[in-house]
């Protein structure tokens, strides 16, 4: 039974339910008190011990149902082959058959083993063949074969061959029945593997794809992965949010706050039993994000906006701007519209026109310069390709001098900076950080760093 539970954990893990050894121990203890007798009871009890959030409860229920029903094999006696049991007379195997088969377990099993026996034998073989390791659909054939081998298929086949060659009437009859049984065995094994695959590997492909997307260049991501990307970015934003949501204050031990200490201890005649220490307040992160959505970064613009969306969930005081030919503020759209409507709306308003960095910077400094102060971090997402217009580096200097820091994230690798119409090398001088950032992973790392500077005491 230990093995059953372990396999169950593995199935759960494949569905993104995290189970630590401590939880596994709890589950074992739970099973000890609850027992395997009452299915619903067991399900409820295990769910309470193992699933740790609302989503996990859903996954758990699905997985439980799938896992604990899989041993249901068809009973072939009634359905498939009613005549075979009649022939051998009340289920007793004739002695001549017995002699011919000898002590081959599998042959006996396919001949007249019950569905339960068959299920158990297959389960055992599956454990030996490590079926729980199955990952890909293409492995199904391999694992089916392995299970059958472990069950002793080779010996069965040799036996059938031998019986066929023999002249004896009874022997060829038996061979026929054995072949029938073997077909049944194949079918069951195939079904069994399919169920196992569903159980252990359904999400494996998805996980693999997501890992791959994390490392892919934003511009190269297929539009059909947009939904998936959305989910990934969301999750990333949520992680960042929980990481930085709290910790607004830092107690600085060592400096006594005299005023508040006296106030707190008035009840004790002013004798300072309770001390209050001075605290440093941590600034809320103030971020201004300016996003290039022009033709040259068209492929990644969508994801950059998606990212702004997620960032908006993390940081309450985010102000977003988008530009190509000119620049507009998009904070309202980020705040109130759903992603599916918001991104097309932004792209519709300013997207995909020839870039004019100079003009956009002018727009920004004219209309929105008051959003910058010495606590603001400016993040610019763009390739710095300005179609040979005046880059207006003077305005860049204004922004640089006013803000706490300016971070430029460029989807192009550094070797391309300054080639052609790229003004990156000139802009770079006015950035505290200028980095190549092309994958979701890069984005996550950089934003994490930015937020960290705010929360460091």
């Amino acid at each position: 039974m230990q093995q059953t539970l372990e396999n169950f954990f593995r199935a759960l893990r494949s569905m993104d339910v995290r189970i630590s050894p401590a939880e596994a121990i709890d589950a074992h203890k739970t099973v000890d008190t609850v027992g395997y007798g009452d299915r619903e009871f067991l399900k409820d009890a295990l769910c309470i011990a193992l699933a740790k959030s609302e989503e996990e409860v859903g996954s758990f229920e699905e997985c439980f149902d799938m896992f604990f029903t899989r041993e249901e094999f068809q009973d072939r006696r009634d359905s498939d082959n009613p005549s075979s049991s009649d022939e051998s007379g009340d289920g007793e195997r004739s002695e001549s058959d017995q002699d011919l088969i000898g002590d081959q377990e599998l042959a006996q099993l396919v001949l007249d083993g019950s569905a339960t026996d068959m299920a158990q034998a297959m389960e055992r073989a599956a454990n030996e063949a490590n079926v729980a390791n199955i990952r890909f659909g293409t492995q199904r054939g391999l694992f089916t074969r392995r299970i059958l081998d472990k069950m002793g298929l080779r010996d069965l086949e040799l036996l059938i061959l031998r019986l066929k060659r023999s002249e004896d009437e009874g022997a060829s009859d038996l061979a026929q029945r054995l072949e029938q049984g073997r077909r049944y065995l194949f079918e069951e094994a195939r079904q069994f593997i399919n169920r196992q695959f569903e159980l252990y590997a359904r999400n494996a492909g998805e996980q693999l794809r997501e890992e791959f997307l994390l490392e892919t260049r934003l511009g190269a991501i297929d539009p059909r992965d947009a939904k998936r990307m959305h989910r990934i970015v969301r999750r990333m934003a949520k992680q960042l949010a929980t990481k930085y949501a709290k910790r607004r204050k830092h107690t600085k031990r060592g400096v006594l706050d005299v005023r508040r200490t006296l106030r707190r201890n008035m009840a004790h005649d002013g004798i300072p039993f309770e001390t209050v220490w001075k605290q440093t307040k941590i600034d809320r992160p103030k971020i201004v994000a300016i996003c290039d959505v022009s033709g040259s970064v068209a492929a990644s613009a969508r994801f950059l906006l998606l990212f702004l969306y997620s960032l908006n969930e993390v940081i309450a005081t985010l102000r977003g701007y988008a530009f190509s030919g000119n620049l507009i503020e998009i904070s309202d759209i980020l705040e109130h519209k759903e992603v599916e409507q918001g991104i097309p709306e932004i792209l519709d308003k300013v997207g995909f026109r020839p870039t004019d960095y100079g003009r956009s910077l002018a727009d920004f400094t004219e209309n929105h310069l008051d959003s910058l102060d010495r606590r603001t971090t400016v993040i610019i997402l763009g390739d710095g390709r300005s179609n040979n217009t005046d880059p207006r580096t003077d305005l860049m200097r204004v922004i640089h001098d006013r803000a706490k820091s300016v971070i430029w994230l460029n989807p192009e690798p550094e070797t391309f900076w300054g080639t052609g119409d790229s003004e990156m090398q000139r802009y770079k001088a006015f950035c505290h950080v200028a980095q190549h950032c092309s994958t979701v992973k890069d984005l996550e790392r950089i934003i994490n760093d930015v937020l960290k500077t705010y929360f460091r005491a």
Partner: protein
Amino acid sequence: MKNIVPPHGVDEKLASVESIMEGLGEVGYIASRRIATALFVAQNLSKPILVEGSAGVGKTELALSTANWLGLPLIRMQCYEGLDESKALYEWKYGKQLLYTQILKDKMGDTLSDTKGLDEAMERLHGFGDMFFSEQFLEPRPLLKALREEHGAVLLIDEVDKSDEEFEAFLLEILSEFQITIPELGTIKAVKPPLVFLTSNNMREMGDALKRRCLHLFIPLPDEKLERRIVASRVPDIEERLRRQLVAFVQALRAVDLKKLPSISETIDWARVLLLLHADSLEIDMVRETLNVLLKFEQDIEAVERDVAELTRKENQA
């Protein structure tokens, strides 16, 4: 000290899921099978239960009802930002210590008057032990109280998600070992492990360490059948027909896209209001006027008001 008769048969009462469901039903809490199972497992594994679910589905009520049914004292600790161990665990009674020092000053003078030199006086003082840092001067706060209840207790740590991360970490010792350490007194272990409920509204994700130490119970919004039973148990005077209609109405309302879906407590409140107004069936005007009991946001009320007529008609036909 208090003279409570030790509650009988707490263990027997928790011995099976059926008896738990029945028992909670007696005190007016209609528990689903999963809730009862959670209690059962918690009792057997001696683990706290982390109860999650949207506001008003009966998370806190579960703890209250359990305490009520088992006849155990309920010790409740409301969490909030800035809650620290001096408010949750123990506090020295500074005022009393101060007062006693004042009163005992003369006495001390007498006691020490015949000693020669500082050393000897000090020696004698040491002989009295830790006078001012002993149990008499300890003010137990909820957590310590729960550990010191001789016959066990129900400890409710309400809205644990509102507390700080440091406090969450501080809870770990008490949740896994049922013991706490006070530097001046040493480690205090529970006489009988209390039954612990933690509730959370998911204001923030709880840490893995805390989750790992708890059983997890998610209470969803109830289905129609369960909700009818709950209303019947909480508002017994309401008529069968009205009860059926109002529950169906609320269920239909939950399918609408609202900012805050009405949960069980709202249904019960609404049933009470309708009872007060002597309603015997749902009428459009009355529903419209009492909608603010069910819905807590202006936008939600506006959104639903338009459909009230249709929703009510449908439920009346049903």
